[in-house]
C-alpha cells in the first residue's frame, strides 16, 4: 500500500522530508463523522466516559465556527483527512523492538542517540500512536510517570479523569474540539510532590502518511514543589497535499512547582499546525513555555498561562521563522486571575523570502488581580522587503493596580550591520547568520545546550538560500 509522494520543488532544503512505505493495521476512512470518532474510542478500548467526552467534543466541533482571524485556514479540507492511523508496530519496550523502518526514521532524526546522551525519558509518536517509550529507572522509582496518553488513560484513569479537559475544555475552540474528539497519543506526565526531574523528558512527533491528521493530547501534572522540563520535537515528510497537526496540551502546575515546556517544531511546509496549549499555575508555581516555530504552512499557536493564585509566574519565550508561503501566527496569553502574579512574554520572529510572521498576544488582568506585573517584548526581523510582520498585542486590564509594559520593534537586517561584519572578514552569509543568531540569542540561551545548537542549525538551514 505504497503512497506515491509528489515531492515539492524545494524538498532538498528540508532534510526531514523523506517518508516511509505505509504499513498500518488500522487506518480510518477519510473524513470525520460520529462513527469515525466512536470507532477510534472502540478500537482503543476506552472507558465510557472518554467515549462520551469524544462524542460531546465532536458535536462542539460541528457547531464551532472556523476562526476568521489569524491565518488562512480555508485550505483545510476536513473530509480529506485521515483522523486515525495505527502503525503495524506494537509499542516497543526497547529500541530494538521498534520495527526497522520506523527505527530508521527516528535514527535519521537522531532520537535514540539524544536519549543516550542526556535525556531522562523519551517518547516517539508515529502517526497516531506512540511507538516507543522509555523512562529512566530511578525516576520511575521516585514515582515519576512519563507515558503515552493512551496508556495514561488505562493505567492512571483516576488522575486522567480528574484533570483531562479541565484546562482546555472540549468546546474551547474548533480545533481543540476536533482534538478532543479524535485525539490519539501524546504524553501523560505526572511528577509527585517534591520530585525534581533534573534533565529533560523528550517526546518526538512524526507524521508519515499523506493527508494525515495528527491529534496528540498531552497532559502534565506537577504536584506541589516538583519540577519537570518536557521537550517536544516535530517533523513530517513533504507531500504535495496538506496535513493537519492539531494538538492539545494541558499543564497543571500545583503550588510551588515549576513546569518548563519546550517545543522545537520543524514541520515541512505543507502542515497546518493549529495547536492549543494552556497551563494553570497555582500559588507560587511557575510555568514556562519555550516555543520555537520553524516550518509548517500555517501555525496558529498562543501558549497560555492562567495565573490562578498569588505568587504564580508565567513566561513565554517564542521564536518564529517564516519563509516563502509560510505564515507563523504565534504569540502568548497571560491571564492574571489572582493578585501579585507576574508574567513575561518575549517573542522573536524572522520573516524572509515573502514569509509572514504575526505576533498575537493577550495580557488580561481580572478585577482583584492587584499587584500583577506583566512585561511583553516582541521583536521582528525582516530579511527583505517582500516579507511581512504584524503585531497584535491585546491588553485587557480590569484592575488598576497593575504594572503592564509592552515594547515592540521591527527591524530589517541592515546594510550597515552587514557591511560592518563583512568589513571584519565575514562573508555575506556568515554575517547574516551572525545577525540572525544574535537576534534569537535571548531564546537560544534558555534552551539546553544541545537544543540551542539544534535551533541555531535549523535557523541557518532555513536561512541558506535567502541571501542572494
Amino acid at each position: 500500500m505504497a503512497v506515491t509522494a509528489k515531492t515539492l520543488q524545494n524538498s532538498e532544503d528540508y532534510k526531514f522530508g523523506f517518508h516511509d512505505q505505509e504499513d498500518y493495521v488500522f487506518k480510518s476512512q477519510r473524513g470525520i463523522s460520529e462513527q469515525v470518532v466512536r470507532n477510534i474510542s472502540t478500537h482503543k478500548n476506552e472507558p465510557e466516559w472518554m467515549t462520551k467526552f469524544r462524542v460531546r467534543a465532536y458535536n462542539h466541533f460541528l457547531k464551532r465556527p472556523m476562526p476568521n482571524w489569524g491565518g488562512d485556514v480555508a485550505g483545510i479540507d476536513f473530509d480529506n483527512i485521515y483522523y486515525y492511523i495505527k502503525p503495524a508496530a506494537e509499542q516497543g519496550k526497547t529500541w530494538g523492538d521498534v520495527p526497522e523502518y520506523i527505527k530508521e526514521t527516528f535514527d535519521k532524526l537522531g532520537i535514540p542517540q539524544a536519549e543516550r546522551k542526556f535525556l531522562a525519558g523519551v517518547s516517539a509518536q508515529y502517526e497516531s500512536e506512540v511507538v516507543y517509550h522509555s523512562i529512566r529507572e530511578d525516576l520511575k522509582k521516585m514515582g515519576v510517570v512519563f507515558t503515552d496518553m493512551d496508556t495514561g488513560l488505562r493505567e492512571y484513569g483516576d488522575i486522567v479523569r480528574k484533570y483531562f479537559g479541565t484546562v482546555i475544555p472540549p468546546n474551547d475552540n474548533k480545533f481543540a474540539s476536533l482534538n478532543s474528539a479524535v485525539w490519539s497519543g501524546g504524553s501523560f506526565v505526572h511528577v509527585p510532590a517534591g520530585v525534581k526531574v533534573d534533565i529533560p523528558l523528550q517526546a518526538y512527533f512524526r507524521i508519515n502518511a499523506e493527508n494525515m491528521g495528527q491529534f496528540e493530547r498531552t497532559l502534565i501534572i506537577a504536584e506541589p514543589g516538583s519540577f519537570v522540563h518536557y521537550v517536544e520535537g516535530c517533523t513530517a515528510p513533504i507531500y504535495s497535499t496538506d496535513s493537519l497537526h492539531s494538538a492539545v496540551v494541558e499543564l497543571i502546575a500545583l503550588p510551588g512547582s515549576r513546569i518548563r515546556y519546550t517545543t522545537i517544531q520543524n514541520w515541512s511546509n505543507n502542515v497546518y499546525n493549529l495547536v492549543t496549549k494552556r497551563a494553570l499555575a497555582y500559588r507560587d508555581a511557575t510555568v514556562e513555555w519555550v516555543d520555537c516555530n520553524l516550518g509548517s504552512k500555517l501555525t496558529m499557536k498562543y501558549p497560555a498561562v492562567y495565573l490562578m493564585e498569588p505568587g504564580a509566574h508565567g513566561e513565554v519565550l517564542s521564536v518564529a521563522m517564516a519563509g516563502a508561503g509560510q505564515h507563523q501566527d504565534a504569540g502568548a496569553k497571560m491571564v492574571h486571575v489572582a493578585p501579585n502574579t507576574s508574567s513575561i512574554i518575549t517573542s522573536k520572529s524572522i520573516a524572509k523570502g515573502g514569509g509572514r510572521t504575526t505576533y498575537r498576544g493577550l495580557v488580561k488582568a481580572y478585577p482583584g488581580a492587584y499587584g500583577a506585573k506583566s512585561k511583553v517584548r516582541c521583536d521582528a526581523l525582516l530579511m527583505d522587503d517582500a516579507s511581512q510582520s504584524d503585531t497584535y498585542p491585546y491588553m485587557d486590564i480590569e484592575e488598576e493596580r497593575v504594572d503592564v509594559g509592552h515594547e515592540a520593534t521591527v527591524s530589517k537586517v541592515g546594510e550597515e550591520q552587514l557591511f560592518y561584519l563583512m568589513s571584519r572578514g565575514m562573508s555575506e552569509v556568515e554575517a547574516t547568520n551572525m545577525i540572525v543568531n544574535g537576534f534569537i540569542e535571548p531564546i537560544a540561551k534558555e534552551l539546553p545546550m544541545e537544543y540551542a545548537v539544534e535551533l541555531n542549525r535549523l535557523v541557518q538551514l532555513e536561512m541558506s538560500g535567502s541571501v542572494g
Partner: protein
Amino acid sequence: MSELLEIQDLHVTVEQREILKGVDLVIPQGETHALMGPNGSGKSTLAYTLMGHPKYQVTGGSVRWKGQDVLGLKPDERARTGLFLAFQYPVTIPGVTLVNFLRQSLRAVRGKEQAVRDFRKELSTHMATLKMDNQFITRYINDGFSGGEKKRAEMLQLAMLRPQMAILDETDSGLDIDALRIVSEGVNSLAGPELGVLIITHYQRILNYIAPKRVHVLYQGRVIVSGGPELVGRLESEGYDPIIKEFGPPEEAAA
C-alpha cells in the same frame, strides 16, 4: 617589502551626488598619515569607499593595494587582503558577544582557527593596553556602549585582526581627553613597519598623541595639499580657511 595603498583620481558618487572628485593619495605600509578636512569634504566617503560599502559608487579612478585593484572586491575580501576600517559610528549587533565576534572575524581574516589559549592571551594583552575590563568582551557588540567604549572596541578589533593598512575614521570624535589618550596609545603600540595608518580627522588634537609622517587636506572631494607634520601646526593656529584660500580650487579662491 613595504606595500602601498594607491588611490588615483578617485571619483565617488553617493545617491547621485558626486562627493569625491578625483582623489590622489599614496600611503605606504609602515607609515602613519593624516587626512584632514572640514565637514562635508568627503573624508568619511573615502573611508567607506576604501572598505567597499555598497552605497558608495565609484565612477572613476582606481584604488590599488599591494599592487591589486581592490575596487572589484567585496568588503570581506578586502578585509582578507589586510585592509581595516575603524568606524566612526560602529553599529550594534544585538545578541552577539564581542568575544564570539572577534573569534569569528579572526578565523575569517586569517583563514584558520587559532588555539583558544593563544586567542585568550592575545586578547587580554590588548585589553590591558586599552584599559578594558574582562567583562567587556562578554557584552553584545556595541550594545549600550558609551562613545568611548565603542572606539576602544574598534581599537581592540584592530589589534586582534592585525591588518596591514588601517583607516581610522574620526576615531577621535566623541572621546574625552582620557579616552583619546588611551585610544591613541593603543594605535601607537600597533604602529610599526607592519602597519600603515590613515587617520581621518577634523581636528588636530588626536595628532598631538599620534604623530603622522604626512598630512593631507581634503576639500570638496580633492586632496588640495599634502605636507609634513608642520601642516598640522598651521591648521591649529589658522584654521582651514587660509589653507583653502591658498591651495583650494581657483573659483573658490576668487569667490
